[in-house]
């Protein structure tokens, strides 16, 4: 069956015209998706989709560090926080700064990259568990800083967070409001969907190109064998720092977009659980495989929401009352799913093709 599927896929993808048609269909489907959702299950779902796209961007950034370079980072959400707070401070009544988005996004990416290097530099000698512990600490330090930076000078408003953050606006048009264009009315979440989709596609292209480049190969080499990589003339220090900085800058951009979409940031959005969640997206989807990570991110943001909206009504219909809190059920099923995937598909739902070949051969050898 799998062989049949593979040969079928090979035939389909080797034919240029069919491939092009596939892309066009995918593009159209993605374009009408938000309208389909808002007309059937409601506009909230477009918003959920928006967040799924942001998380996908975040997961792709983490994939550079964890998947490509093999550096286990448990504090990745800190870069998301840096990006979000950079946006919040530069475009809100907090300091009465209202910079345009095209200025803040690069600043946010740059700030996150700087923090990425700050984390990377002292941890260059660490690997595996030890690196995980240090990065975990780093993530918490950033969150605690944000939580306490309201004294002696109020910068972040502490636990209260920053409110009334500017949305993205182009030519004075606020993108979170409804706009009419060609007779179709686009609400804010719709416009953000297209914006985020475009940025995500850009991110995917960047990730794929990096992976298949000299730099990407150097990352993989470090992941596979650091000593051998050094013997090949790879400056492992610089290449690792580059992975930290690039991964972090993707996180920073995702954070800025999150702040502008949400209109509000507070430290509690950037806890350890969020870091773990993004890491789960990477691991569950297929570490080191761009499309696998994408799948992981979409599944782990959309499925819990479906569960949240259906768990209570289904229980009421079946048993007449709500016995299990949907939130508790979510963590229960999440844990179960994680264990199942690790048992059945240890390299993720959609691992990199090469890696899968290797693992299949491993299992057939046993």
């Amino acid at each position, binding site marked *: 069956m799998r062989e049949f599927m593979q040969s079928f896929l090979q035939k389909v993808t080797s034919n240029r015209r069919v491939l092009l048609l596939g892309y066009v269909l995918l593009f159209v489907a993605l374009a009408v998706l938000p309208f389909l959702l808002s007309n059937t299950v409601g506009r909230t779902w477009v918003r959920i989709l928006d967040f799924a796209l942001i998380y996908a961007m975040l997961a792709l950034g983490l994939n550079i560090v964890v998947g490509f370079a093999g550096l286990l980072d448990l504090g990745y959400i800190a870069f998301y926080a840096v990006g979000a707070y950079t946006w919040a401070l530069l475009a809100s009544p907090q300091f009465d700064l209202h910079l345009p988005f095209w200025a803040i996004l690069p600043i946010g990416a740059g700030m996150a990259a700087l923090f990425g290097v700050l984390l990377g530099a002292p941890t260059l000698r660490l690997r595996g568990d030890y690196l995980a512990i240090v990065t975990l600490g780093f993530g918490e330090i950033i969150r605690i800083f944000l939580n306490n930076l309201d004294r002696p000078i109020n910068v972040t408003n502490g636990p209260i967070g920053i409110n009334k953050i500017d949305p993205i606006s182009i030519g004075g048009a606020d993108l979170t409001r409804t706009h009419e264009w060609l007779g179709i009315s686009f609400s804010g979440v719709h416009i953000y969907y297209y914006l985020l989709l475009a940025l995500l596609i850009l991110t995917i292209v*960047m990730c794929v*190109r*990096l992976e298949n*480049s*000299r*730099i*990407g*190969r*150097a990352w*993989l*080499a470090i992941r*596979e*064998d650091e*000593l*051998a*990589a*050094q*013997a*090949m*003339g*790879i*400056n*492992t220090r610089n290449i690792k720092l*580059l992975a930290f900085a*690039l991964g972090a800058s993707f996180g920073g951009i995702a954070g800025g977009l999150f702040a502008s979409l949400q209109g509000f940031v507070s430290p509690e959005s950037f806890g350890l659980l969020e870091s773990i969640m993004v890491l789960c997206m990477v691991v569950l989807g297929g570490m080191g495989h761009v499309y696998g990570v994408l799948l992981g991110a979409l599944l782990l943001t959309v499925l819990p929401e479906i569960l949240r909206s259906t768990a209570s009504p289904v229980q009421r219909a079946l048993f007449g009352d709500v016995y299990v809190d949907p939130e508790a059920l979510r963590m229960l099923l999440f844990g179960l799913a994680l264990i199942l995937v690790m048992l059945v598909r240890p390299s993720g739902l959609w691992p990199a093709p*090469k*890696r899968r*070949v*290797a693992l299949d*051969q491993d299992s057939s050898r046993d």
Partner: protein
Amino acid sequence: MALLELQKINKNFGGVQALHNVSLTIEGGEIYGLIGPNGAGKTTLFNVITGVYSPSSGGVEFNGESLVGRKPHQVAISGIARTFQNIRLFQKMTVLENVMIGTHANTSTGPIGAIFNTKSARSEEKLIRVQSRAWLDYVGILSQADNLAKNLSYGDQRRLEIARALAMKPKLLALDEPAAGMNATETDELKLLIRRIRSDGVSILLIEHDVKLIMNLCDRVAVLDYGQKIAEDVPNLVRRDPNVIQAYLGGELP
């Protein structure tokens, strides 16, 4: 002028003196052998040359510049490529990708070039591919290009390690026990390959347990015992050196 010159290298690990005043020179175009009983300090010396360890005292000069204090990747860039005693390939990458990594130091595409897929990045990538396939052909495993490195046979993994090192275009190729675990046929093929590499202008430093191979192949041989160089000469003289016989057999031959 000598290609590689070691001057009175000492290396201590705590109280253990692994290398004691070792001096030797490797000339350009030469196959230089390094032998010695187990624990004699061969691999330590190898690691000092390749920058994995820095010597406690003494100097390493390669191609006219000092290598002391340089990191392994800097030593590699300056022109010494190495293989490992226990093969260290990038297991989950393809055979071709392994060799492509060998070209890292001689190529220059950075993250910006990669992201924008610039013209120079594309042409460099193409060149890397062509060159890497040529190196695979050179060592005779081109047909395996798309396999994963870990799925190669033992002999082919050794060949791949050599191809990967050659892709760095080194002046000196340092081989750490390349014949270990090989059968007689594979060893013979390896001998031919090493001769061919030398005739293409790369000097070779060979560490081996297989004394027969060393004596057959090398222009000059040094013998280490307990961290000291006890002999250095052409194979035929080293073979008859009483110190060497003492070290290997524990006494004079009758």
